[in-house]
């Protein structure tokens, strides 16, 4: 690529220069090669703020071509304002098509959810990560954190789970449940709900985690062992809706969110919900 090519690229409205994309692809490959390991990368500033999906956006821009089809959701909703904003940035910058249907998407960027269905071997799921370090709750010093990961020394995580169970009778970790990937690294599963955790295990799709502010990329390659940290005799629990049903589609098989009155429930995955209604 010549200098003038690079300048032409810039003038065509790209959000990242080509060198940056190459760098991000290299970091992504390293992440895939070492499942769960947080690969540092030279995270660039994006037209969206740090904490607003700048890491996910950089990965999506680096892996998306004009023949791709992208889906962008926030909280499971294609219509969330942040999802809409990111989607138009991705499509205008890459020339990719857009969709709300996960099975049609080659790249799905998401904040806080995995689509209920539709992801397969041809899919890449890009999750926006606010806090990539799963051990920060038990250790603040980054030098010590690096050591703990290097030695797979996770006993303090186990102690925190033990203490939680002793104090509260249940494990109270809510979203972003810590998981052991490929029997080696503990990762923060963004804040996706526990509901989505079992679907990371042995998943057919590639999941890429982008933390722009903390400048880390990590990955769960397809068909990787993903185990939520829990004791052998304390079953991992997903969110319990106590038999509630979505007031739009009437289904209870998806992750439901409630209105403040606690009696009206809705599917968090709006596209899945719409398809249920269509097929009814």
């Amino acid at each position, binding site marked *: 690529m010549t200098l003038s090519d690079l300048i032409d690229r810039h003038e065509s409205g790209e959000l990242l*220069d080509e060198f940056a994309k190459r760098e991000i692809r290299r970091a992504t490959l390293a992440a895939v090669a070492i499942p769960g390991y947080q690969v540092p990368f030279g995270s660039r*500033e994006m037209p969206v703020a740090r904490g*607003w999906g700048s890491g996910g956006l950089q990965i999506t821009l680096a892996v998306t071509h004009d023949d791709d089809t992208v889906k962008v959701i926030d909280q499971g909703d294609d*219509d*969330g304002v942040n999802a809409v904003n990111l989607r138009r940035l991705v499509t205008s910058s890459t020339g990719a098509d857009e969709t709300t*249907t996960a099975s049609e998407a080659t790249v799905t960027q998401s904040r806080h959810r995995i689509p209920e269905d539709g992801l397969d071997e041809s899919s890449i799921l890009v999750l926006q990560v606010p806090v990539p370090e799963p051990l920060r709750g038990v250790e603040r010093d980054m030098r010590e954190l690096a050591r703990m990961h290097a030695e797979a020394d996770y006993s303090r995580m186990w102690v925190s789970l033990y203490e939680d169970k002793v104090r509260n009778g249940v494990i109270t970790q*809510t979203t972003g449940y810590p998981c052991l990937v490929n029997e080696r690294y503990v990762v923060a599963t963004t804040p996706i*709900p526990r509901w989505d955790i079992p679907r990371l295990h042995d998943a057919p799709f590639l999941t890429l985690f982008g933390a722009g502010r903390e400048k880390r990329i990590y990955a769960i390659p397809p068909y990787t062992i993903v185990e939520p940290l829990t004791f052998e005799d304390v079953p991992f629990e997903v*969110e319990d809706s106590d038999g509630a049903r979505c007031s739009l589609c009437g289904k209870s098989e998806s992750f439901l969110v409630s209105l403040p009155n606690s009696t009206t429930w809705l599917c968090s995955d709006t596209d899945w919900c719409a398809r249920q209604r269509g097929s009814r």
Partner: protein
Amino acid sequence: MGYVSARGGLDAIRAAESLVRTKRLVSESNWLEEDQILDKLRLLVDRVMSEAGLWDPRLASKAIRQSEGDATEAVHLLRAYRSTLPRFAYSEAIDADDATVMRRIVPAFQRVPGNQLLGRSVDYTARFLERTGDDDAREEAEKLRAAQTEESRDIEPASEEIAPRRLMELLREMDMLVDRRLEDDPEPFDITRTPARPPAPRSALLSSMARADTGALVNQWYRNILGPDGYLHEVTLGEVRHANMPLNVRHPVTGETVTIMQVRVSEVEAIEDLEGVEEDRSRFDVGYGLCFGHNERKAIAMANLDIACHRDAGRTQLEQSLLLTTDALDSAGFLEHLKLPHYVTFRSMIERKIAVRKARQRRDA
């Protein structure tokens, strides 16, 4: 395709965008010229360039205008723009002694070679709010302009004044400084390409602070003076400078070093009185601060924190604080992300509250 369902969100953000743009462009007052921002709000321009890590006064002025004076937002615009540009070259190392000094003070001595040069500074002007009307101000400006032309403006300052010898040189000659020059000459750490994490080389720390939010750096300094957990020595300032520095690159064809521009910087050398048990009590050490533009507050904080971090030597997490918590965009962006929808996480939290209650009931039953 379910695209139609996405319309509501798109309409909402388009409306917000339009409101911002219309209110900014359509108003009773005149269009704000770039020259006016450069000239009348020069310190804001300097600060924005310093925190963006990008020297381009015109772009910075545009960013300040677009952000309606929000410095952090302006920094964001500049950095995001910078992300779209390929990097063609790295500048050569600058010898700070090639700089031309516009202001220079040395608090450590009464008289120094090259003299104290107060220059343009409000340090000793009384902070009275001027309530002059616009017409009076214009009239005064005319008078000042006339007086200025009568004065001889063309006297060249003496060379020892614009390039004075550093106090550090003199202290070194007096054998007053510990020598901690490195054996090797490592390439400076590029914080825009590799995230700096402790333990990091000093160049990473200095680059991070040079680009840090001014307020964050001042706070880090003051927090270590008066805060609950830090302890930081007050330094004696050996050198406070506002100067023009030449920026050199190697010509891609001839290989010659060419000066492509001048950047204005604030530069500070801070003298530290060593009193630790393993330190050389008979000598001083020096902290260094340098940032784009005229921003002495930032450069002083940086110099003092540089030496504090060196002396801390990893005993506390000062280095982590400086490397990771002082960037304007990191902190502001993450703070503001709290405005994003969080109803999935919140739902999960409520579910666990109920689970805890059920567990308690089971235990008590």
